[in-house]
């Protein structure tokens, strides 16, 4: 056996552990380098902390959950209520903090549902082609023909208002996007040599989709899902705003904006701060999506 690439690669053969190390350091560097990336990661970490530990962080957790405090209604922002009190005297800050768990849970559930339904359909459509592809794509077109929010509204109107139904409605209007996305990725993956290699080995099509196609769709799905988090927060907030989502007294941000509508001129803080919370969260998720794409691109490692 003649000398192979194993020989004479002094110092080049890095151990796998050190490579994960490099990956981590690289990720940190990407984040620190870009102020927007840094901002987005920071905000999301804060959101997660608030969502997990809200009841312990919020100054007035009971009010956050909904206990009224009518004597102090409409109190402006002060040392006692940092962001003011709302129309029922509840501390706006506490409400926002407790509400963060809804703000994170909803997109998580919706996106997971949408991906679970949409991605496999997209992979199937892209790989199989032919009539199956046609069928799935026309179905997708059907759903996409409706403006997504309107579709969600219609579904909730039919099912009845409430958080669970709102999530279901949004998920139903969301899955086609993932089908389209995954189908596109699948179409390009199908032509790659490693898929041909799997076929030449005799791997059944079903297994190829599960083992080769779908795992390679993870990155684009992840990037899209991250941005979608923000969009779903907005969608759910909109549904709540028109009364079709979470019902009072839940501290849903969209609901808070809606309820503060009538008082917006004089007691502006009731709508403004929850609105700002929505804005910052959506922005952070959008930016995170971009950062994620930069981090996950394996070509950067060379």
């Amino acid at each position, binding site marked *: 056996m*003649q*000398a*192979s*690439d194993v*020989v*004479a*690669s*002094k110092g*080049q053969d890095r151990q796998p552990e050190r490579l994960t190390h*490099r990956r981590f350091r*690289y990720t940190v*560097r*990407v984040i620190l*380098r870009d102020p927007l990336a840094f901002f987005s990661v920071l905000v999301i970490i804060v959101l997660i902390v608030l969502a997990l530990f809200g009841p312990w962080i919020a100054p007035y957790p009971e009010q956050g959950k909904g206990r009224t405090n009518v004597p102090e209604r409409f109190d402006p922002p002060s040392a006692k209520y940092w962001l003011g009190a709302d129309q029922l005297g509840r501390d706006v800050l506490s409400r926002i903090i407790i509400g963060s768990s809804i703000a994170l849970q909803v997109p998580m559930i919706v996106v997971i549902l949408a991906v679970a339904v949409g991605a496999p359909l997209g992979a199937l459509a892209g790989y199989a082609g032919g009539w199956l592809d046609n069928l799935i794509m026309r179905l997708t077109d059907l759903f996409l023909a409706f403006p997504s929010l309107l579709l969600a509204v219609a579904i909730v109107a039919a099912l009845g208002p409430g958080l669970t139904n709102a999530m279901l409605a949004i998920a139903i209007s969301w899955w086609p996007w993932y089908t389209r996305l995954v189908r596109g990725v699948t179409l390009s993956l199908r032509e790659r040599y490693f898929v041909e290699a799997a076929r030449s080995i005799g791997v059944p099509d079903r297994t190829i989709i599960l083992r080769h196609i779908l795992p390679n769709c993870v990155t684009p799905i992840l990037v899209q899902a991250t941005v979608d988090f923000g969009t779903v927060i907005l969608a759910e907030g909109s549904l709540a705003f028109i009364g079709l989502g979470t019902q009072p007294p839940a501290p849903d941000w969209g609901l808070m904006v809606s309820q503060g509508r009538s008082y917006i001129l004089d007691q502006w803080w009731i709508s403004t701060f929850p609105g700002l919370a929505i804005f910052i969260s959506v922005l952070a998720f959008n930016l995170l999506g971009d950062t994620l794409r930069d981090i996950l691109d394996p070509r*950067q*490692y*060379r």
Partner: protein
Amino acid sequence: MTGPSLRIEDLHVSFFTLSGKVRAINGVSLEVYPGEFFGLVGETGCGKTVTGLAVLGLVPKPGRVTQGRILLKGRDLLRLSPREIQRVRGDEIAMIFQNPSTSLNPVFTIGSQLVRVIRQHQGGRKRQAEKHACELLEAVGLPEAERLMRSYPHELSGGMLQRVMIAMALSSRPSLLIADEPTTALDVTIQAQILALLRDLQSRFDITTLLITHDLGIIAETCDRIAVLYAGQVAEVGTTTEIFHNPCHPYTQGLIRAVPRPDRDVGRLAAIPGTVPSNPGFLSYCLFAPRCSYAWDRCWEVQPTQFPVGEGHRVACFLHASQEVRS
């Protein structure tokens, strides 16, 4: 022969990536004489393409020239302002690349793109530029020039597109043409046509040509002088005949012995063991030493400079150093 028209002195180019600093070129020095067909040969990662780009000031970010001079007829190109180098590009130096189909805009006709280039460097009216464009297309061996002017890039084959690129490169009669792997993407029979064209143009218009390639066969058949690059440094430089009949650097020898030939049996193919160092900039010994069957202590202590071994023939290898330097 007067002095060299292109002289590269101790060029260093590094890429400052997020993963660290990569030294692509580690001290390349060479001269190209007027009217000559010069070949820059090496494998992937040896820095030959970056050298070509550096001459034109086109090293892509995050890369940068960190040291050295590039003299075109005595003028240091690295010291020019962006405006001045812009004028040099296309005017005095032209470059053609590997993939002609990506060098042309698919939305515009061949003619309009040619005319635009001509007018950019020479001004003049559209009529004039169109006439000039037709002449150029004929000069590069494309028949029915007028019909071609109205075609779009996707209607032409790879070989024809490359001819169009050459025409574009020649439009302002540059004194130096840099061709970076111009035939790698083309079929063998088309490749032969393009290489013949390049040599023909060189003698007709007296253009100095710098040909960058990894193919030893192309180098042997078209070039007057060659530089062999390894890991960002010049391993050996000399006339084609000298290098092929008397290769002095172990890497050059290894390369020649590793290429199978269609015209005769070569016996056993001698592969060069090991691989190219991935980040050679930080090594203080001869970059080829780990793979060299002749390496001895000196080779691991310090990097060799270029030692003369014949008429215009230099090698960066201690095997050919004079006695004092060896010890």
